[in-house]
């Protein structure tokens, strides 16, 4: 057991789950949300020569995906440090 006690292990895991869920909410919001479900509504708005919904579907969602993974990597690494369960 690498954690000092069970309580710490539980807290680490809960924080990790919270991080993953919040990032997945953004993941779903930009693709399934802005790119698909709300696409007609957002297409009313023009953004740099694009209809906004179309832009999310063919450009924006992909940029956000990339950012999400690096944010996750940075935050998860920080979480490991905080609970002292990072690799040596």
């Amino acid at each position, binding site marked *: 057991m*690498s*954690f000092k006690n069970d309580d710490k*292990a539980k807290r*680490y*895991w809960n924080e*990790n*789950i919270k991080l*993953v869920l919040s*990032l*997945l909410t953004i*993941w779903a919001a930009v*693709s*399934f949300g802005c*790119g*698909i*479900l709300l*696409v007609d509504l957002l*297409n009313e708005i023009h*953004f*740099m*020569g*694009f*209809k906004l919904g*179309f*832009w999310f*579907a*063919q*450009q924006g*969602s*992909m*940029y956000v*995906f*990339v950012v*999400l*993974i*690096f944010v*996750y*990597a940075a935050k*998860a*690494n920080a979480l*490991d440090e905080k*609970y*002292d*369960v*990072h*690799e*040596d």
Partner: protein
Amino acid sequence: MEVQTLTYLIVGITFALYIGIAVWSRAGSTKEFYVAGGGVPPVMNGMATAADWMSAASFISLAGIVSFTGYDGSVYLMGWTGGYVLLALLMAPYLRKFGKFTVPDFVGDRYYSQAARTVAVVCAIFISFTYIAGQMRGVGVVFSRFLEVDVDTGVYIGMAVVFFYAVLGGMKGITYTQVAQYCVLIFAFMVPAIFLSVMMTGHIIPQLGFGSELVDAAGNNSGVFLLDKLDGLSAQLGFAQYTEGSKSMIDVFFITGALMFGTAGLPHVIVRFFTVPRVKDARSSAGWALVFIAIMYTTIPALAAFSRVNMIETVNGPDGQGVEYAQAPSWISSWEKTGLIEFDDKNGDGKMFYTNGENNEMKIDRDIIVLATPEIASLPAWVIALVAAGGLAAALSTSAGLLLVISTSVSHDLLKKNLMPDISDKKELMFARTAAAVGIVIAGYFGINPPGFVAAVVAFAFGLAASSLFPAITMGIFSKKMNKEGAIAGMLAGLTFTAAYIIYFKFVNPGANTPENWLFAISPEGIGLFGMLINFAAAIAVCKITTAVPASVQDMVESIRFPKGSGEARDH
């Protein structure tokens, strides 16, 4: 120099490079063969993953699909990139900490069951074969187009090259060759796209040109945005609005979902995250893979839009009345020879005309969009040669990665873990190489005698991965309570439902494959997402009424949830 000579030259140089790298980095142990010794730095691993992921089909056909379907093509763009977020957040770090070689390893150990392992092995082999058949065909097509040999000869050459470096080099050789292949393919893809972007919008970055005003030959702004122009042309010619598409919203939703979750369940993608040194690297490696994939995938819709306007204007003329066939640019007649463009002068006026409906006189294959771009944009001959080398790099890198999953599944999951547990490392390595060789022969057979349903089985591969492996793996990580009965029931339920639905609409009764007959208006391409939900539901229900998970397995799940100690797991 002529295009032909240049093509031989550039393709020859790149092949020599790949083989050189394979010889330099050949595998000496099973660990090197399966996971490159677990020592690939994350940026390189990301690049290799990207090359592995982008197949001949996505290099050659995807821009064409988006060009012809507009907004509907977004399902592939979002689906084939969004899956990497799931991989990074839900799987890669935990599977890396788990520290063994394959997906069936994880499923078998986590669910303490040979039956679960066997289901996973069957899924992995089936999915990989589905893919590789299409890849070998792709190799054949690219060779035949650019080297002017017939398709079968093209397949033989491709088989020989893949054989050499996949069998010899294993994962270690493959990973380093794929890094080189990524560089070749992305350069080959970007050069024509950038030229076209500058020509049509004056922007050097295609992603910006995509949203810009068109410019005329003198470089003056026309005041018309590219996408408005496309919507206007679509309306004029009776096509669905380019920015709106024609698929129903629910179908777009489900196809995108099936592709995302399917991507995260594909064995040849997951295995890439076993090859990095640390858990930390597994996280960032997925990010780098997506960066390298997104460079191409965000360019694809831009290229698609440029080409569509360009093509329609070339055929119909600036006045939209059609252009005299006698005055058509030379690329039209040169691609007519390949059958990818056909002109049928229905009204006998000597003019070409492209429209939706029965007045249409042009049959234009979607593969033209990438293959003919250098000629459409009047680019120099070396660019045409480069596109050939890029297409081959895409096809070869993907085939090699898939082949490795097949050989690993046979030698490691089937023989070592099931039938012959006592074989030595050396013997296992020999079996892995033999399996790779047999795999190439079978894949080559399918490349030369392609089953008519290659396109249909792609839906199959993603559907199966989404409905079987993805839920089993994620539940194995995020639930300590999920037991073997639940996992097996879930995989079988998801698999059976998805397979039955696809087989019915694609093979048994293709005539009924219309939205009115689909369940909730979900097409067979998107049903994997529904199958995944069935898998989760069945697994949870069965788990509730069966025995608890052994304490040792619960401890194992506990231990893969944090990175500390991953070094120990590497050398087991």
